[in-house]
């Protein structure tokens, strides 16, 4: 297993380098001049020149990239053009926020999506199946931003149950932290739950038709054991793949959700950074996201082997 993970990490290195070159180039292709934005309304030419010099904007792009990559290798991702905070510190501060949001959303999605998928596959063609499908389809179709604002108006303004927006670190006040994050996690989770439900349903359907399930039933096992131990466990392999892929969707969804609920996370950071042409921050975030995505994939591959030991031989 360790050798397998090690091999995968080695393969991942060129991918990370490619991602960073790609983003660096792409960013500089964006129209709009970051220095012009930074210089302020007055756009004093002396200020603009001083800033260009300071942030090495006069250098050719390959030189800028090498300078950035050299520093990044030593753990220095530069400073934010907008607030002058070190990028690594910024990301470090935001990461727990988005991870908390993503994990809570994922838990909500799994709690809704998997049981709903299992149930609708088991009761295929009945009203339960239909209902689950309709709910799932609605979950997919309702835009995040609309659901978010509606929830704020209902739950916060009308009922006053949960705070409308904001953030509280988990370490400071766990109860309040979860409360603040509940609505955004629900909004983010429902969209994912729908996808998860659909995949669980189709995986379960094919597994339920298989010979070993029939054998298990013929043995006289209780239906619950057949369903959970024999069918679900095998159906989970493709579902785990989907969850890994959904991680990307979670991060993308977090961008919008964080905007609506004003959560100071990764997503909000990257949107603001792109609009302000805060190159160093965008670059740092993409690098970290890329690494996280690759890590998730390696973990998923490892998880297959745990779920289905036969895969280790391949």
């Amino acid at each position: 297993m360790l050798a397998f993970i090690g091999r995968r990490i080695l393969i991942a290195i060129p991918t990370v380098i490619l991602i960073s070159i790609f983003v660096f180039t792409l960013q500089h292709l964006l129209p709009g001049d970051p220095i012009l934005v930074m210089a302020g309304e007055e756009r004093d030419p002396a200020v603009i020149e001083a800033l260009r010099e300071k942030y090495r904007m006069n250098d050719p792009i390959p030189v800028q990239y090498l300078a950035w990559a050299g520093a990044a290798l030593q753990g220095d991702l530069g400073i934010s053009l907008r607030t002058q905070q070190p990028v690594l510190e910024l990301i470090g501060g935001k990461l727990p926020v988005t991870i908390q949001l993503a994990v809570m959303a994922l838990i909500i999605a799994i709690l809704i999506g998997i049981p709903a998928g299992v149930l609708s596959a088991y009761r295929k063609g009945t009203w339960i199946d239909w209902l689950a499908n309709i709910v799932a389809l609605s979950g997919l179709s309702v835009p995040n931003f609309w659901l978010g604002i509606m929830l704020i108006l209902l739950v916060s303004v009308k009922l006053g149950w949960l705070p409308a927006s904001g953030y509280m670190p988990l370490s400071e006040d766990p109860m309040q932290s979860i409360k603040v994050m509940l609505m955004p996690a629900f909004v983010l989770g429902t969209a994912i739950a729908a996808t998860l439900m659909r995949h669980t349903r189709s995986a379960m359907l094919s597994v339920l038709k298989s010979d070993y399930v029939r054998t298990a039933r013929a043995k006289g096992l209780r239906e619950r054991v057949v369903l959970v131990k024999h069918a679900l466990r095998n159906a989970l392999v493709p579902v785990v793949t989907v969850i890994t892929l959904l991680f990307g969707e979670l991060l993308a969804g977090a961008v919008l959700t964080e905007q609506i609920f004003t959560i100071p996370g990764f997503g909000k950071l990257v949107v603001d950074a792109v609009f302000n042409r805060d190159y160093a921050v965008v670059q740092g975030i993409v690098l970290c996201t890329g690494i996280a995505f690759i890590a998730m994939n390696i973990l998923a591959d490892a998880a297959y082997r745990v779920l289905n030991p036969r895969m280790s031989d391949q």
Partner: protein
Amino acid sequence: MQTLKTLGLAALLAASSGLVHAQDLRIGLQEDPDVLDPDQSRTFVGRIVYASLCDKLVDITPQLEIIPMLATGWEWNADGTELTMTLRDGVVFHDGEPFNAEAVAYNLNRSKNFELSRRKSEVSSVESWEVVDDTTIKISLAAPDATLIAQFADRAGMMLSPKAAEEAGEEFGLNPVCAGPFTFKERIQQDRIVLEKFADYYRADEINFDSVTFLPIPDTTVRLANLRAGDLDMLERLAATDVPSVMSDDGLTMEKATSLGYQGITVNVGNGDRANTPIGTDSRVRRALSLAIDRAALNQVVFEGAFAAGNQPYPPDSPWFNTAFPVPERDVEAAKALLADAGFADGVDVEVQVANNPVQTQVMQVVQAMAAEAGINISLTAKEFATLLSDQSAGDYMASQIGWSGRVDPDGNIHQFMTTGGGINDSKYSNPEVDTLLNEARLSNDTADRKEKYDAALAILQEDSPIVYLYHQVWIWALDNNVLGFVPYPDGMIRLHGVSMTE
């Protein structure tokens, strides 16, 4: 199970009720401020935070008169090249360092010479300074500059602790140390900025909060929802479309002030090849566009009538507004006649770039519909703001919908836009007569004399119209009824002196 649920809910509610502190004022901002260093910062919301953090040499009244703040008095010499300021005695910075003439000298130098200072142009007239004694500083100018005092009423006049600024250098903004009513406690990017009351503040008796928390919430709907839910005590820049709903809410109050700035359509009249268009070369086309617009209707449709229609760089209620040119009524026939006169009886095409946000797009769509009736066919190009700005500055545009946040001194709204070679003269308008008038208006400290010169310049600009002014934003604050004593200012700042909160 039911009992468990009820208990859980009760626990949730109990946890939330304990969070409200009467002495903390929570203010919702439209954006997250940039770096909190008055010499480096550039955002409007940043200035709102400074109003509680960094006192200035002078301040303004809601009527835009300059009043003492850290400087108790000032005097010009006869030819307006020497400014002597008397400073308040006994003031200390947040780190306990004394505020004195040496500190003012340090700050002047930092604004003027610090590599990353964005204040250079604001204090460019300052040539040298001399510390006369602890409470007196003499500032010498290269040439008279009537705008300088007004600059000291903003970021260029904010006093930083020399010791802290020296130690932190360019990182001062991570932990700003000033001489305002509140000290900096913490900042979580995009989430909050927390300030705490400064016990040794020289006007501490006017400050009624133990702390103030600024929360950037960009979405206007969500910001208002937070105020309604009690998570905020007040917010700035209420959306004009939310005004009726706030008015009908018994728990909320609203305050308004017409801003110092403007919004308009800047036309490329001399900035590179793209100035060679009918609207760029012929002022009659620009005047026709202006006449085709029903500014009152525009204000009504997009802003529920909450903003102020305008046709000059100063709003109609400003003392600097030229009353000889009131905001014009719409006159489609006159517009058509002007176009015909210019040789475009069959109509003319104009491409206008606009920032891709819903409000500005809507403004331009209304203008587009109105202009079409006069034969001016506007096509809109939506651009994200950074792109719009760089295209505009590079001359890669025909016309651009953009605005200006406004300055206390009239010079700030006109000089850099309308003089030849002006720093932000993106239309590259150039008229020697206007140059002379605006340059001379800068030199005089006599208000009547200045007014005469601005009036004369505005008369020419009405004719040449390199910028077609549309409207003036109105700052709208929404407050919880518990918040008392808030005074709206045309600069859009939130001054907390005298503001209090009932239980």
